[in-house]
């Protein structure tokens, strides 16, 4: 099976300039779509079988079909708040192919009958924001965005909104709250955004990569796109490969590839003769896979069957020098720091979990605290308002399960056997407590 099929990023350099994009066939699908019925757009997306590229992998066409047809206004929100540690694919798409996103946004907005779209971009993505601003301006000048798009009578407003530095705002309901000017905190579902989203109106929230794929899906036709990939995971996906590999970076692969093809083929394997200790297959919130699982396919089902999740498509390779307790500490500290504080298990559980892991690393933990840690994770898992708590509990529990002896050694020996030999030693920190 070929692993070099690329769709979204099938070019060198970038197509920031609208001329480059149009010469490559850009904005033709929007033109065609506007001449047809909105339902045709949704039908093509549905037929492609594409699943959300943000993390949850929900079928995009089905999600769009949940919007009630009779309630206006409806909104499209673009989730460009890419924040999951290890994930940097959306920024590359926005930097290199911003017009694909804009074309996808307008086309999809037309499809769901929305006349306003909001792109919620991660605050730290300053360069990407500038690129999108310029691209939007070009698209406006060319009549692809604004009132009466290409003379079709369809009006499309696009608002580019920068986040203020909160991971949680990548959660769709928190994103909506933040857009509305409220605290960026998730809302209980139901009601789902499709029914009561932005300003309580029907709202479709899609990831950058998903929407940027839409013009290509329309170009190929839904059925042709559905030819690529596996039974239930269609198309290509941009994977962010990082950790200890020779050639880290973004790689677009069809969803038939394996982790080995990505890590050893594209990434060049581990440098300096290191051996692999573990693989994080879907962003830092995913449970780890072990080296013997490297032949796992990278589609949603295969990774789930292997005991983890495809998540945001961020693959992080861990080598043998790495202390798993330190890794657990870094990961859990991130989620503790980003916990919004709305629901109890996440707010308190992440703090408790971090504290136990820290004392294990420092050699201050008592016997039995490993089970306490697992139990705290278990008590967070599935009990929170949104997936953030799970995002801490799942990976930490998987580290302890797979490397229990290593954790136990910290307790038995009263400290970290890796100490400074670990490449992530000392990188964790305790954010100053607010008094």
């Amino acid at each position, binding site marked *: 099976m070929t692993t070099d099929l690329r769709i979204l990023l099938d070019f060198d350099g970038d197509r920031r300039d609208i001329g480059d994009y149009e010469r490559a066939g850009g904005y033709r699908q929007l033109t065609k779509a506007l001449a047809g019925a909105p339902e045709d757009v949704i039908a093509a997306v549905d037929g492609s079988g594409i699943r959300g590229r943000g993390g949850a992998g929900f079928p995009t066409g089905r999600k769009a079909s949940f919007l009630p047809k009779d309630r206006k206004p409806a909104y499209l929100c673009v989730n460009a708040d890419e924040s999951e540690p290890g994930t940097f694919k959306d920024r590359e798409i926005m930097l290199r192919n911003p017009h694909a996103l804009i074309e996808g946004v307008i086309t999809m907005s037309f499809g769901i009958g929305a006349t306003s779209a909001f792109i919620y971009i991660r605050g730290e993505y300053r360069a990407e924001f500038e690129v999108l601003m310029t691209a939007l301006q070009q698209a406006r000048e060319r009549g692809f965005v604004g009132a009466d798009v290409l003379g079709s009578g369809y009006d499309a407003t696009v608002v580019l909104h920068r986040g203020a530095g909160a991971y949680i705002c990548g959660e769709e309901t928190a994103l909506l709250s933040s857009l509305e000017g409220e605290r960026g905190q998730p809302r209980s579902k139901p009601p789902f955004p499709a029914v009561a989203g932005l300003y309580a109106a029907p709202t479709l929230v899609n990831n950058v990569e998903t929407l940027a794929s839409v013009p290509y899906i329309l170009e190929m036709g839904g059925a042709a796109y559905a030819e690529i990939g596996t039974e239930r995971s269609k198309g290509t996906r941009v994977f962010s490969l990082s950790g200890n590999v020779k050639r880290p970076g973004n790689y677009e692969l069809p969803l038939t590839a394996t982790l080995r093809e990505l890590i050893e083929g594209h990434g060049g394997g581990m440098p300096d003769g290191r051996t692999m200790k573990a693989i994080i297959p879907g962003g830092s919130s995913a449970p780890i896979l072990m080296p013997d699982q490297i032949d796992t396919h990278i589609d949603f089902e295969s990774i789930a069957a292997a005991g983890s999740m495809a998540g945001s498509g961020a693959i992080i390779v861990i080598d043998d020098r790495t202390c798993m307790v330190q890794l657990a500490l870094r990961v859990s500290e991130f989620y*503790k720091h980003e916990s919004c504080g709305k629901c109890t298990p996440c707010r308190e559980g992440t703090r408790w979990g971090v504290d136990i892991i820290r004392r294990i690393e420092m050699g201050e933990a008592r016997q039995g605290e490993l089970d306490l840690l697992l139990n705290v994770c278990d*008590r967070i898992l599935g009990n929170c308002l949104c997936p953030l708590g799970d995002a801490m509990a799942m990976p930490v529990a998987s580290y302890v399960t797979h490397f229990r002896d290593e954790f136990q050694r910290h307790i038995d020996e009263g400290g970290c056997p890796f100490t400074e030999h670990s490449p992530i030693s000392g990188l964790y920190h305790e954010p100053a407590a607010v*008094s």
Partner: protein
Amino acid sequence: MATVETDTVTLSINDREVTVPKGMSLVEAAAEAGIEVPVFCYEPRLGAAVGACRMCLVEIEGIPKLQTACTTPVTDGMVVHSHSDRAREGQDAVLEFLLINHPLDCPICDKGGECPLQDLTFRYGPGSTRMTLPKRTHTKPVPISPLIKLDRERCILCYRCTRFSEDVSGDLQLVTEHRGANSIITTFEGRPYDGEFSGNVTELCPVGALTSISYRFRGRPWEIQNIPTVCGECPIGCNTYATIREGQVARVLSRNNPAVDDGWLCDRGRYTFPSLESEQRITTPLIRGGRGLEPVDGSTALDHIADRLRAAVERFGPGSVAIIASGDQTSEEAHLWARIQEQALGGGPIVCGPEGGAGWGELAAHSATIADLDDADLIVVAGATDLVHRAPILELRIRRAVDRGARVVTIGAGATRLDTLHAAEHVSAAPGTTHAALLAASQGVALKGLSDRSVILWNGRMSAPVATVLAHVAHASGCRVLPTPLAANELGCQAAGLGTHTPAEALEAVEQGRVKAVVLLGADPVGGWPGGDRWRGLMERAFFALQVSPFQTGSSGWATTIVPSPMPLEKEGTMTNIEGRVQRLRAAVPPPPGVLDGIVLAAELGRRLGLDMPDQPPAVFADMAGSRAAFAGLTWAGIGERGVRPEPASGSGQAPPAPHVAEGEPEGTIVVGYRQLMSGPTVEGAPALHFQRRSGIEISHDDAQQIGVATGDRVEVSFAGASLTGAALVQRRLRRGVVRLATAVPYVGPGELRAAPEETADA
């Protein structure tokens, strides 16, 4: 109106089958089945459930994860377990997480013993601790206002208080800062929480984090008694509990009556109880003699009063005694005093309250209930000032109605809080002509859609012309009317016969020389009524001037005899609220020694004047029910815990006379002086409340430009022969030509506004 419930679902909770309306949450459905699901953040009065605390996790067959019962709507055939091992594990987990940071200082916590966190930990929580980390610490307690202290260590971040501030009272003052485990509750920019409803957060708080300063360290739940009574501070009559410890009122809590208050209290109702022990209270009868007011015992005072009143009638003829009442009396007190006036003193004028409202009878057939606001599709609020000053708690009900989709139209001078409600419409009217504007609006497009599902809230003085307009509009459209009497029991007093004349009519009688003696019942006409000078003239010339009052007031200087009276928390009796609901007051504490019970005072006086009057509240009530039409058919025992609202007289069904309202609008500056919520002797006696007083002279943007002042600059207002200087408060939405300010004496009329010279240090 009975509705046939067809949209129901049947589900099983803990093996109990229950059929409930569609759309109900699992928490409510469980309650229907008699099953308690533990909750912290769930509070239906705060709006839609948010699922924040996760306390109500339950197991639903077919769903892998535990679900929060508060946010999960019931579905047909659902099988729910709230006590299964998995559900209990989830509930135990949430409690353990909550207790991680909770200081467990229950032995010295005011909430201890009546604390949901304690109770739920006992029933659902872990029996021991596995704590391995230091608890989060904060500076504590932090006063967030002169009324409330916040202990952030006890706070479990359920967000009830911030939701109240944002979604119920709309004051937006309580907020969350920071995030995650560092989240704290605080006030916006650290300013004092200054809102008329702030005290409600102390009751909403499920732990001892938000506490009333006045109750901190004052009592333990096992050494207090909660007396169910009714607030006597305004005519809404919110249902309350007075907490009694060692014979003193220690706090006032809400006693949720959904038909009246929905479980909310305003801060005046909650925090004025310290005035019971105010130094300003009169605690002994006083008779003016050669050396001024001299204390006497009760019996001497009664003999003296009876003698003087008898002498007045003998010397000047029947009807020469006027009774000027405040309208804060219980209906029983009112009935007895009315009997004295009618049967022993020859029927002189009786005035009830400074507005001495007339026209209530005309409106009876169109009377709305407070709960009508809930279902109203259109709520009209007509008046020149903020509703909060006359009917505070109704603001919360209107806000909720708007959230549910009701339309609000305000008619008045503008710049009121209700004007800023989402989608509120405003009809500008010059003060004094609001009823005319209402009539015009009802015939035009502004009030299109006025129907039997609409309510008009008349937020101002009731008078015959106003009543005529309201009755006319109500008759034409089918809408209902909720007037706002000024005094707490104005309607009850009037119904009990205490209120036969308007103040103007009484003054006329005085000035025609028909009145020679005066009895002030709680009223302070010299200090706080329009026409104070004319009232003073009456008292100066009076053959006998009796004041019955809990406090010395501006009128006391002209009284020849003063008798102290109890305050509402010391009284047994009934009051009739804004919607005509008769409610029971229960004496939480006895009046101070030397203060005679109000009913005993009137009955004893009546006896000395030859009347046979009962002196026990139930007997007085029966006597009243037998002779006053408004109380006919009511029994003392039938009033119950929630009060009783007799069906209002249905009226003749005939169209009321067409109102004639004066054409044209007043010229020049109109001054609106209003009695603000945080004023009056009870507020005086509760200094902690004073920070909530509104100051400043509200002027319109145009007027400010014209006289060249900005907010904060000093302006001078003259009206009714007096002049007043204060800081200007420029209001963009205030009608041009209107100057609005809080005054001791209510006033609407012409005046003048000008910029005042800056005060200089040596001026």
